[in-house]
């Protein structure tokens, strides 16, 4: 396939020997090492890159850098598909696959382009105005709008790449490796300070890569090379290319996105290397050397492919060795772009004319133009561009003193318009850091206000509004010297080389070039299709604040974040209001500076690392027993243990029967455990729990309910007295950490003089429960030195001894209603204990049971589960647990609140049992109990736990019902998925009412 060849035969920072194959819109092309996708496409004569976001106008390449607001593409296939990236920032690699966005069926023949023909019907706010009503149709509109506008194709499969964070600390971070940044690094390197130099490009050098002015008698590239060679010798200096500083936060906390593998062919991206690395940096000192961005002019059809920034054209010709066109016209309002025109001319692009807004450009420039045989048309403007998919000519006219077009006019044939409307310092990071901007009336730009330096930072060079090379070098060196001293390092006197360039940038303001024909589009924000008439309209409609303008027109809200459009939009708004830019104000820049992928934001915390899956030391034992696991808080716990051919319900019912009839074994290791020691232990228990603890003797256990200060139940559990001033407290699985930190907060902040020591020992101890009529016999058979007779070891007692020859703490407590022991051993012995019990219990019908079975068993017994029967608004009285409240105690956490009117009023929801009239029907948990009165329906309660009971042979439920305790025997109605269910209100206790089994 043959393509136009715009590549120069020599020059540029590219390696012509190293060719790279890539594709664009399915056509194969060849570029060379050192190319961006934009430069490679340009070399191949591809003018048309995409279609605009809203109006689908043809768009080409308008810059050579991060400011690009036109040439957006999507790259990669399948699991590596990325959309909405600018072609000027993509480093090409072998096999790169890229395509246009915003166009269908193809960039050349785009159906949406007819929208452009009707653009008068699509002003700013069109979508808001048209599709606001009726609201319920929005999802239909939205679908159609997204389809036609779109921002490229969303990836359809999971990302193949990994991402990660990197935390680091530096004494000095330098952002940008142009003349100011490199100079700062060179000045700082010998100090030994830890220095990081970040550069968003894949080559260090910034503006020097396209520059020709001499530094210290060297070419800019020689000086860059020399600087890098020198810096690489310092172990204390980290050079980070392909890294964008995206965020500047409080306390010099910076985020930087390093693109690690995007420039590599997919088949050489090594497994395990993250695609992107998000640096999270704490810096003592920061030097911002982020440069500046050239500003476009706002003139008729200024979005046509072939219209580009003068600095962009210079970059293509000098850095990439590509001719951006054959015949160019320069349109400028300042001095800086003359050099670009001259260099284009020198490298074989015919410059047909320089059109300068100013009546009298400086004599030296006029002379230079004439020396290079470039016609200069001063006091004139390009007011219109002809050509659709590529510039074919420009219309030039004189400009009157009142900024109107004069009758003096001509048409100039060309395929390239290079333009310069002045320069905008890249102040985003300064602004993110909290710095204020001031408007520079002479240079027509916003620059950092030296009186408002927000953090330990300095702006140097062009990003500080000082555009000349000489200034950049001097400020870089001086800032580094200053930063080192501030950070406590030695620094020699600041030194910087001479540069033979000290141009100034004093543009003549012309924010809108007049047009001859009403309705000619003059774009402000190419990416979001915002034209000057949209800004005018917004102002007329009352969106006069800059913040409103931005949101209404979407100017500056594309992925380029308005790097080229913000100032122009502000200026036009100011003109419309007969005001000034400082009076209109500017929006504050916010992170990120360039878009961040979701992958980078998430880092490694995805998939198996999204959250911790806590496992007990019996996890593998359960796996071998065929357990099906269920997440419970952060824990993974066995839900049930199916036998061959069993479904969940069959397995659970079998497990429940095994406990009621033989013996079951359960892993309760995840229960929270706190070791409490010290003379004030008892005082602590009495404050933490609602009930009293004074009578608890060593060797005994007691159930307790814990309230928050608001009087509502927070947690519950059993605490054992291990000895004098020594207790073992258990909490629910889900609240273990919360209870511990709650206790610590009280002890540290309120009761700091108490002599008590609390240690979390949740995973020190594994807890294996055996429950059922055969539990005692099982414990006897597995072997223990503890006397198990009821007289010696009653219900709610604790003993220490050995079980299966393992030292153990045994608690005779029960959550199932059966005779039961909870055996605690150090976690690493749990599998040995479990296996011994299974072996010993073979002839006693032992079966492991999981979470679902234990929930059904405890519900039969009317035991509450924190988080089901409680939800942070439930008191012990609501649950009929007044026996667990020490009403005679002088104080405990939550006591005072229990007498607040809301907690004592009648009509509170109280815990009851529910038995459906249809015994086989299990009410879904969370179902509402309806109350119909006076034609109104409302909820009078809800179902908190509901199960099929193996023991009862029918369903059962627990519910919180208004005045429930007074309504036993009443019928209530629930409506569930169109079905009406009736149930009888009962006591919440379905099994062994007198507790005979527990105490036997």
């Amino acid at each position, binding site marked *: 396939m043959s393509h136009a060849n715009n590549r120069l035969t020599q020059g540029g920072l590219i390696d012509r020997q190293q060719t790279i194959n890539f594709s664009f819109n399915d056509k194969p092309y060849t570029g060379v090492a050192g190319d961006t996708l934009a430069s490679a496409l340009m070399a191949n004569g591809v003018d048309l890159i995409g279609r605009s976001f809203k109006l689908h106008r043809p768009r080409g390449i308008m810059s050579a850098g991060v400011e690009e607001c036109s040439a957006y593409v999507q790259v990669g296939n399948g699991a590596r598909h990325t959309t909405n990236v600018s072609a000027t920032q993509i480093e090409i690699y072998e096999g790169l696959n890229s395509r246009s966005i915003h166009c269908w069926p193809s960039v050349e023949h785009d159906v949406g382009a007819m929208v452009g023909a009707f653009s008068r019907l699509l002003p700013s706010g069109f979508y808001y105005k048209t599709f606001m009503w009726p609201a319920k149709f929005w999802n239909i509109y939205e679908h159609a709008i997204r389809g036609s506008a779109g921002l490229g194709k969303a990836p359809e499969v999971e990302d193949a790449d990994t991402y*990660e*964070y*990197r*935390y*680091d*600390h530096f004494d000095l971070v330098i952002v940008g490796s142009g003349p100011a940044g490199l100079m700062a690094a060179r000045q700082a390197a010998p100090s030994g300070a*830890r220095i990081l130099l970040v550069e968003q490009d894949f080559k260090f050098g910034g503006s020097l890569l396209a520059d020709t002015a001499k530094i210290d008698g060297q070419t800019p590239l020689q000086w860059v090379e020399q600087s890098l060679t020198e810096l690489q010798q310092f172990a204390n200096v980290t050079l980070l290319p392909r890294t964008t500083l995206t965020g500047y936060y409080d306390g010099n906390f910076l985020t930087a996105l390093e693109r690690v593998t995007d420039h590599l062919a997919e088949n050489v991206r*090594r*497994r*395990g*290397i*993250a695609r992107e690395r998000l640096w*999270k940096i*704490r810096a003592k000192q920061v030097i911002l050397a982020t440069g500046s961005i050239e500003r476009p002019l706002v003139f008729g059809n200024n979005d046509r492919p072939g219209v580009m920034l003068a600095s962009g054209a210079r970059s293509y010709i000098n850095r990439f060795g590509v001719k951006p066109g054959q015949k160019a016209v320069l349109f400028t309002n300042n001095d800086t772009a003359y050099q670009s025109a001259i260099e284009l001319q020198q490298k074989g692009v015919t410059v047909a004319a320089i059109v300068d807004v100013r009546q009298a450009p400086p004599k030296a420039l006029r002379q230079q133009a004439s020396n290079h045989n470039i016609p200069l048309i001063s006091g004139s403007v390009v007011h219109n561009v002809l050509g659709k998919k590529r510039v074919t000519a420009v219309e030039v006219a004189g400009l009157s003193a009142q900024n109107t077009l004069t009758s003096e006019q001509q048409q100039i044939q060309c395929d390239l318009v290079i333009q310069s409307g002045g320069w905008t310092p890249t102040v985003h990071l300064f602004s993110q850091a909290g710095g204020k901007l001031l408007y520079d009336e002479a240079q027509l730009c916003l620059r950092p206000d030296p009186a408002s330096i927000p953090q330990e930072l300095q702006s140097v060079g062009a990003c500080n509004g000082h555009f000349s090379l000489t200034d950049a070098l001097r400020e870089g060196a001086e800032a580094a010297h200053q930063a080192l001293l501030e950070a406590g390092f030695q620094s020699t006197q600041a030194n910087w080389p001479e540069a033979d360039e000290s141009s100034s940038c004093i543009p003549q303001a012309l924010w809108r070039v007049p047009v001859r024909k009403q309705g000619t589009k003059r774009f402000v924000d190419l990416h979001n299709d915002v034209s000057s008439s949209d800004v005018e309209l917004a102002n007329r409609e009352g969106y006069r604040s800059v913040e409103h303008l931005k949101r209404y027109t979407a100017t500056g809200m594309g992925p380029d974040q308005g790097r080229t459009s913000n100032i122009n939009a502000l200026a036009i708004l100011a003109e419309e209001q007969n005001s000034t830019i400082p009076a209109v104000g500017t929006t504050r820049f916010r992170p990120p500076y360039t878009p961040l992928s979701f992958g980078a934001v998430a880092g*490694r*915390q995805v998939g*198996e*690392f999204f*959250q*911790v*899956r*806590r*496992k*007990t*030391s019996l996890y*593998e034992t359960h796996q071998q027993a065929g357990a099906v696991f269920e997440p419970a808080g952060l*824990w993974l716990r066995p839900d049930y243990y199916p036998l061959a051919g069993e479904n969940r319900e069959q397995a659970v019912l079998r497990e429940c029967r095994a406990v009621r009839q033989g013996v079951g074994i359960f892993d309760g290791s*995840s229960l929270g455990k706190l*070791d409490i*020691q*010290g003379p004030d232990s008892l005082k602590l228990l009495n404050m933490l729990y609602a009930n009293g603890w004074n009578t608890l003797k060593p060797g005994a256990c007691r159930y307790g309910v814990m309230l928050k200060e608001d009087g509502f139940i927070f947690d519950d559990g059993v605490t054992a007295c291990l000895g004098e001033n020594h207790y073992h407290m258990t909490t629910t699985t889900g609240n273990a950490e919360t209870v511990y930190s709650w206790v610590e907060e009280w002890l540290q902040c309120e009761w700091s003089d108490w002599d008590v*020591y609390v*240690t*979390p*020992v*949740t*995973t*020190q*101890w*594994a807890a294996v429960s055996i429950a059922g009529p055969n539990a005692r016999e099982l414990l006897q058979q597995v072997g223990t030195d503890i006397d198990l007779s009821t007289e010696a070891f009653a219900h709610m007692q604790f003993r*220490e001894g050995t079980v299966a*020859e*393992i*030292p*153990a*703490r045994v608690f005779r407590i029960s959550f199932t209603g059966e005779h039961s022991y909870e055996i605690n051993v*150090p*976690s*690493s*012995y*749990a*599998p*040995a204990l479990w296996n011994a019990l299974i072996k010993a219990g073979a002839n006693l019908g032992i079966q492991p049971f999981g979470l679902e079975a234990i929930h059904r068993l405890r519900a039969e017994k009317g035991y509450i589960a924190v988080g089901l029967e409680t939800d942070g608004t439930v008191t012990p009285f609501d649950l009929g647990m007044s026996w667990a409240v020490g009403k005679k105690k002088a104080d405990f956490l939550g006591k005072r609140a229990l007498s607040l009117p809301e907690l004592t009023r009648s009509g509170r929801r109280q815990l009851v049992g529910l038995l459906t009239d249809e015994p086989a029907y299990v009410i879904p948990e969370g179902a509402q109990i309806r109350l119909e009165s006076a034609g109104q329906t409302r909820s009078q309660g809800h179902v908190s736990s509901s199960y099929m009971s193996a023991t009862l042979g029918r369903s059962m439920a627990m519910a919180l019902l208004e005045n429930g305790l007074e309504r036993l025997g009443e019928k209530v109605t629930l409506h569930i998925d169109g079905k009406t269910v009736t149930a009888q209100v009962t006591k919440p206790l379905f099994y062994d009412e007198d507790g005979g089994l527990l105490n036997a």
Partner: protein
Amino acid sequence: MLNIASKSMQAQRIGPIPTRLLQQSSNLKTLKLSDQSFRGKFILWGNPEDSHFTDAVFAATGLTLPRQSGEVTQAGAFRAIWANPQRWYLICEEQDEATLANKLAQSGQVYMSVTDGQCCFHLQGQASVDLLKKGCSLNFSETTFPAGQCLQTRLAITKVFLHRHSVDSFDIYVERSYSEYIWSWLLDAAKEYNH
């Protein structure tokens, strides 16, 4: 206190990391990651301003307790790590655990075994710091985190103790139920060094 250190018991113990995951650490080329979780670990409580307490601990164990964040002291086979102003981690090798337990009992002070509740991994190799920096925001510069210090911090999304033995070797102490997460996380983050 239960005596859990008798010889016949050792055979029945299992470590926190499943064999399958333990084996994956052998794929590491430039890094070494090993499980040292059977080390003896105790929490000791007390008031360091109270000389009865510090004297009793010194008499029983020979340890002078560290008084500041990061500090570690060593006396023979026993090591004391500062955990907070009233709490220390005492560490020893597996074979010394019973001895240390007995000495702590003799001291008459408040202590608790956490041998089974806390795990310990040893990480060593040139890329150790780079690896840890993927999940830990400490300043690893040798002036702020010199060898010999042990800091409590956050690694990935878990709380850990990092005891730095040298420029590039660390003990990582982590709660048992979080240990498998950290082990797997370290292996995953270390993949780029496996060549």
